[in-house]
């Protein structure tokens, strides 16, 4: 069994059976460390003989083993004298620490005896004398190495009776303030540790915690011991007089006091000193008094003792009894190890501190922040945080995470609602827009053939009836020619992804309406979804205006052609006149020849042949003219570009001659062909040539020259280049050449190049004009070779 365990046992005993304490301590320590014969018999009263023999043998062995080191191992005896009895917690606290420390730290065994003098509660001299006699009788013949005195009350007793039971044994005291010792002359071999009593510090603490206090009540008992505490405190109390109203209760009836403190104003500081007895002579234990007063008081109570803490007192400037005991034990050990007690001066316990009871502070609502630095806060209920920090963190985290999730969910819900709302709004808007714009939505299930169509869509198809539509009932409403196209649009099989098919629908009055079917099928997800969706758009008006615009455009183009030809009418008439002239002359020659007696028939035949030839020539001019003048639907045909240039040149021949303009051609040997409308392209060419002629009005006749070139490029386009030696394009005109109604001529409409540009664009080509390096302008028309063009649309 270790010493520590033994101490625990001892502690248990003090709790359950304090009356046996002295005996038990003596017995335990004795049986362990000494092993002397008489102790032994006392220790084993109930052992049977068998065990006894064994023990005897063991003891003999132990005696032998320890004999040679007896000089060093002889126990030192210490007598602990308690001024009070063990019910005083201070007593227990001080002595327990001192006892343990003595045993633990001493290099030699220590044998401890203890006595409770109980002098404070029984202050009569007779009692003291009896106790002295008792000790004398009890320890006669017993030598002590040291007396440890606990509590100041033992000092006067020791001074007076020490010689009677322990002469010349050095004394180490613990407790009692310097003031207590003031009236005594201590012998040289009496030394120890003063407890500190610093009322000034206590009041400082109280004032810091209660800055608004107006009253100070000081409570003290009526016993001599109490009086000495009161004297010690007087100066500190009186110093507070200017600020605080001082009330002292040093002689009181305990019950009356308890009644009084329960009616104190809350701005009162209550300072409780010791109360060992009241004015009625009632014997009291200060700690219990502190408990009562603190409980009854209507204002915070402060006190000088550690034991008050925990009884409801707020706090004070105190040492702990344990520290007092430890300090006293330090001095005792020094003396036991041979130091002369007179060399050790009595000194104040160095382990002082502000101490407060956290619960009491909470009760009065006192703030921790007001505490002086270094204050020890006791009875601080470890908060949830300190006790279960990790758990708290975990729980908090869980709660936090849940909260976050909750918030996220709420947020999401809100978002969802908002989205829903905006979706509804959006749908509403969409519906409104769809209705206003004549748009119907549809969805088609390829697997079942079921077709859903929104209300405006049904109206478009002239089908008011509710219920399911099918592919066939839908197609029935479409004009027969467009059914194939409509079906492929519905099934999402249009060639280009997400494009529209324009179909004609027969409306109720037999009127034809154009409906554009726009489909959007997820071709990539054919396996996943069999549904195609899209919209019907009524584009009748659009088609009508498109047609009208196209008609207007054609009209304008035609007018331009007529206008060009009008300008050229003289030259064109000349072109017809030439063959007519030839025909007439040939005919008259033939007639004359036939009138002769021997007509030259070969010559007549020749003349007739020429007439036919010239007639054809005139006919072709007329045909060309008619082609250019007629208003017809654009056609799509293969056009030999070289031939077309020859034709244009022929038509303009006489105009070119009369304007003294020379035309040179450099035509591609590959005979480039394009697909399109020959009249429109001829119009472009005529326009470019006429422009070139106009541009050369101011050019000297010898230099008037138009150069026409055709060629096929590697990129599959046919280029027609018309260049002249005229004045070229002015920089300020270059940007507006193709704008409608922009002209540089004196009497031009400004539509020629605009129409050329439109025609070429419709043929999928480009046209541009620029200045040549050697002066003059170059018009470059680029057309796709042999491609199906949109001119026919």
């Amino acid at each position, binding site marked *: 069994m270790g010493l520590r365990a033994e101490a625990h046992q001892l502690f248990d005993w003090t709790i359950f059976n304090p009356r046996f304490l002295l005996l038990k301590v003596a017995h335990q320590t004795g049986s362990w460390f000494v092993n002397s014969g008489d102790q032994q018999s006392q220790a084993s009263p109930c052992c049977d003989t068998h065990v006894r023999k064994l023990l005897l043998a063991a003891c003999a062995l132990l005696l032998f083993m320890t004999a040679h080191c007896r000089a060093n191992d002889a126990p030192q005896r210490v007598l602990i004298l308690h001024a009070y009895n063990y019910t005083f917690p201070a007593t227990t606290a001080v002595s327990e620490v001192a006892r343990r420390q003595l045993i633990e730290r001493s290099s030699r065994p220590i044998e401890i005896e203890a006595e409770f003098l109980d002098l404070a509660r029984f202050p009569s001299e007779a009692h003291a004398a009896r106790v002295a006699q008792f000790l004398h009788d009890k320890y006669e013949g017993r030598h002590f190495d040291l007396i440890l005195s606990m509590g100041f009350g033992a000092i006067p007793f020791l001074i007076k009776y020490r010689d009677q039971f322990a002469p010349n044994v050095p004394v180490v005291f613990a407790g009692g303030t310097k003031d207590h010792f003031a009236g005594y002359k201590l012998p040289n071999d009496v030394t120890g540790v003063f407890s500190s009593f610093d009322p000034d510090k206590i009041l400082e603490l109280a004032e810091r915690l209660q800055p608004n206090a107006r009253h100070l009540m000081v409570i003290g008992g009526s016993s001599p011991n109490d009086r000495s505490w009161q004297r010690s405190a007087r100066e500190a109390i009186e110093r507070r007089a200017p600020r605080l109203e001082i009330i002292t209760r040093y002689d009181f009836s305990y019950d009356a006091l308890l009644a009084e403190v329960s009616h104190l104003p809350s701005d009162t500081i209550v300072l409780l000193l010791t109360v060992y007895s009241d004015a009625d002579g009632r014997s009291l234990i200060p700690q219990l008094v502190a408990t009562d007063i603190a409980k009854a008081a209507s204002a915070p109570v402060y006190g000088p003792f550690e034991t008050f803490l925990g009884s409801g007192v707020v706090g004070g400037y105190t040492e702990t009894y344990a520290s007092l005991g430890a300090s006293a034990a330090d001095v005792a050990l020094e003396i036991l190890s041979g130091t002369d007690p007179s060399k050790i001066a009595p000194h104040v316990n160095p382990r002082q501190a502000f101490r407060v009871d956290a619960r009491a502070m909470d009760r009065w609502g006192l703030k921790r922040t007001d505490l002086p630095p270094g204050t020890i806060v006791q009875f601080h209920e470890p908060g949830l945080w300190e006790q279960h920090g990790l758990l708290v963190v975990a729980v908090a985290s869980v709660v936090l995470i849940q909260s976050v999730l909750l918030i996220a969910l709420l947020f999401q819900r809100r978002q969802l609602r908002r989205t829903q709302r905006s979706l509804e709004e959006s749908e509403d808007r969409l519906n409104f827009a769809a209705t206003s714009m004549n748009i119907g939505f549809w969805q088609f299930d390829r697997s079942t053939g079921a077709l859903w169509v929104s209300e405006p869509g049904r109206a478009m198809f002239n089908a008011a009836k509710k219920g399911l539509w099918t592919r066939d009932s839908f197609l029935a409403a479409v004009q027969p020619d467009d059914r194939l196209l409509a079906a492929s649009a519905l099934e999402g099989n249009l060639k280009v992804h997400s494009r529209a098919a324009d179909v004609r629908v027969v409306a109720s009055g037999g009127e034809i309406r154009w409906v554009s079917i726009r489909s959007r099928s997820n071709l990539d997800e054919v396996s996943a979804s069999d549904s195609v969706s899209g919209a019907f758009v009524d584009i009748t008006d659009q088609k009508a205006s498109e047609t009208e615009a196209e008609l207007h455009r054609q009209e304008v183009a035609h007018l331009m052609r007529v206008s060009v030809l009008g300008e050229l009418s*003289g030259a064109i*008439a*000349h072109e017809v*006149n*030439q*063959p*007519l*002239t*030839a*025909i*007439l*002359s*040939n005919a*008259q*020659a033939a007639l*004359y*020849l036939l009138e002769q007696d021997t007509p030259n028939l070969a*010559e007549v035949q*020749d*003349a007739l042949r*020429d007439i036919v*030839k*010239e007639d054809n*020539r005139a006919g072709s001019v007329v045909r060309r003219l008619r082609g250019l003048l007629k208003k017809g639907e654009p056609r799509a045909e293969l056009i030999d570009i070289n031939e077309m240039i020859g034709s244009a040149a022929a038509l303009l021949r*006489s105009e*070119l*001659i*009369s304007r*003294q303009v*020379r035309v040179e051609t450099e035509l591609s040997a590959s005979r480039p062909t394009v697909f399109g409308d020959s009249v429109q392209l001829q119009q472009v060419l005529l326009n470019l040539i006429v422009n070139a002629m106009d541009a050369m009005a101011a050019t000297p006749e010898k230099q008037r020259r138009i150069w026409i070139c055709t060629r096929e490029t590697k990129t599959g386009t046919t280029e027609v280049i018309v260049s002249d030696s005229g004045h070229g394009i002015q920089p300020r005109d270059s940007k507006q050449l193709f704008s409608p109604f922009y002209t540089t001529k004196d009497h031009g409409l400004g539509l020629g190049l605009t129409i050329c540009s439109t025609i070429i664009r419709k043929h999928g080509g480009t046209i541009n004009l620029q200045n040549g390096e050697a002066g003059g302008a170059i018009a470059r028309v680029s057309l796709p070779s042999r491609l199906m063009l949109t001119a026919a649309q």
Partner: protein
Amino acid sequence: MTNDEFTVFLVDDDEGVLKAIGRLLQARGYRIQPFTSPTAFLASHDVSIPGCALLDLSMPDLDGLALQQALSACGSERQVIFLTAKGDIPTSVRAMRAGAIDFLTKPVNDTDLLRAVQEAERKDGEIRSKAASLNSIITKLALLTPREQEVMKHVVAGRLNKQIAGELGTVEKTIKVHRGRVMNKLGVRSVADLVRLAERAGIAGVGS
């Protein structure tokens, strides 16, 4: 066929027309020379050949009027007939002032055409005969000696033999011989004839 035969020079850039007109004139017995290019015509033009030019008014390179001017510039009195598809008045006036025989519009009737050609032929003949008589006078004048030419100038001026002898520092008889030779060489019988001849040849009398 000799180069003395009346020839119609046809110039028209339109081959069909050229051929047809040519055929018509040939049928009527005219000799023709067709040209499609005015410049080619100018380059090979021989003034000595009697005939006329039938010109198209509107041609590339050189139009009819310009061609007419080019012809007169090189001293030719070639008769010109214009043929045009679009004859306007200012052009026709210019052409006529420059001495054109006619200004015909296409398609042209054979009678109009033939009349114009005949007119041209007549004018050309006139000019040519005038030129021929002048040529014979000039040839005869060339036969006279310088002394005879001198005497002739005095005679044309109306001087008497005596006056002429005094002027030339000789005797009247010598003058008489010279006078007889001049009359003989020039083929005239009277002084009046001589004077007329001298006028046509542009010879003025001395001192008159």
